[in-house]
């Protein structure tokens, strides 16, 4: 991490707040990272605004409705051998996504070690966990639509805005996971083929940033949609 004071010990390189001034006023480039990484961060920043707008819209309709909101703990509960466990599927999905984040972090590490077999294998594992997540989401959606009769405009459990918020937020997140599975698979295939031997393995870290972001969004959806 950056040190205090104007210069790092023993060098003429600026440190701390001074680095912001020097980086932003430098002649050639502001961010001393590969351009793909800077662009991925800026894309993720814009995605943050989209997801926050969705979640804020959801919060607004939930706060403003005069009709009771369906209890997510019961709506998303599962019956296991006659015992109803609240939020069971959502809990499994959360752990699945956390696991995939861990394998992705390891893939980035092995990429920089130029161990491209392991890096590709870990990326395929990450993509597989992502595909499992989407599969569980498809199960969750069909259960809600077919068995519970939830529609974007109405549902039998309470406030009609529930369906609209649910399908929009989890649908957009599921779309991100699906896109991530495709993205990771393509990059993993190219890693395995050795396409990045000359260029270097920053691409694995960039793909990893996207994947961790998808996991990050789920953290907020889990807290605000399912646990509220």
């Amino acid at each position, binding site marked *: 991490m950056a040190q205090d004071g104007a210069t790092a010990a023993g060098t003429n390189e600026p440190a701390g707040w001074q680095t*912001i001034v020097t980086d932003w006023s430098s002649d050639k480039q502001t961010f001393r*990272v590969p351009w793909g990484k800077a662009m991925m961060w800026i894309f993720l920043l814009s995605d943050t605004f989209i997801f926050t707008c969705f979640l804020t819209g959801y919060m607004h309709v939930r706060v403003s409705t005069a009709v009771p909101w369906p209890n997510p703990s019961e709506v998303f509960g599962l019956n296991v051998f006659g015992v109803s466990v609240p939020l069971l599927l959502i809990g499994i999905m959360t752990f699945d996504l*956390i696991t995939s*984040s861990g394998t992705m*972090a390891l893939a980035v590490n092995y990429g920089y070690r130029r161990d491209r077999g392991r890096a590709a294998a870990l990326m395929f594992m990450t993509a597989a966990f992502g595909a499992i997540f989407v599969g569980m989401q498809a199960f969750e959606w069909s259960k809600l639509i077919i068995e519970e009769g939830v529609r974007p405009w109405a549902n039998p459990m309470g406030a009609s805005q529930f369906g609209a918020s649910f399908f929009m937020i989890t649908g957009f997140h599921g779309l991100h996971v699906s896109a991530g599975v495709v993205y990771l698979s393509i990059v993993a295939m190219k890693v395995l083929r050795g396409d990045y031997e000359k260029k270097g393995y920053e691409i694995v*870290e960039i793909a*990893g940033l996207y994947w961790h972001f998808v996991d990050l969004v789920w*953290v907020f959806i*889990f*807290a605000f949609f399912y646990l509220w």
Partner: protein
Amino acid sequence: MASDTGQQHPLKIYFIIWALLFLFSGASYATDFLDHGLFRWGLILLFMVLKAGFIIAIFMHMRWERLALIYAILGPPVVLLVLIGLMVVEGEYTEGTRMSRFSAPLPIAGHVAEHEAAHE
């Protein structure tokens, strides 16, 4: 420290953070068995912030980036807190008007009936 050649760190830190994320996920799932209230909300938000923080700082390597990038990315979302705050206030006001207007007979309906009667 930040470097131009990419992020390379010992594997150990990833395993520690991985375990912590599992722990916090389990803990936040467990809050669902508590009674609704401020205590439960506090725990939900605490585990959410911890998980988000560790993912950004360690898995996304933000901790090791230069300040120029950190502030450029983490600064702008702060304005979203203003939007959230405004929508809380506005949402509660809307609920208040719905409670007071929609539960009682609508005064506007009488108005419309009179208006239509005058035109017939």
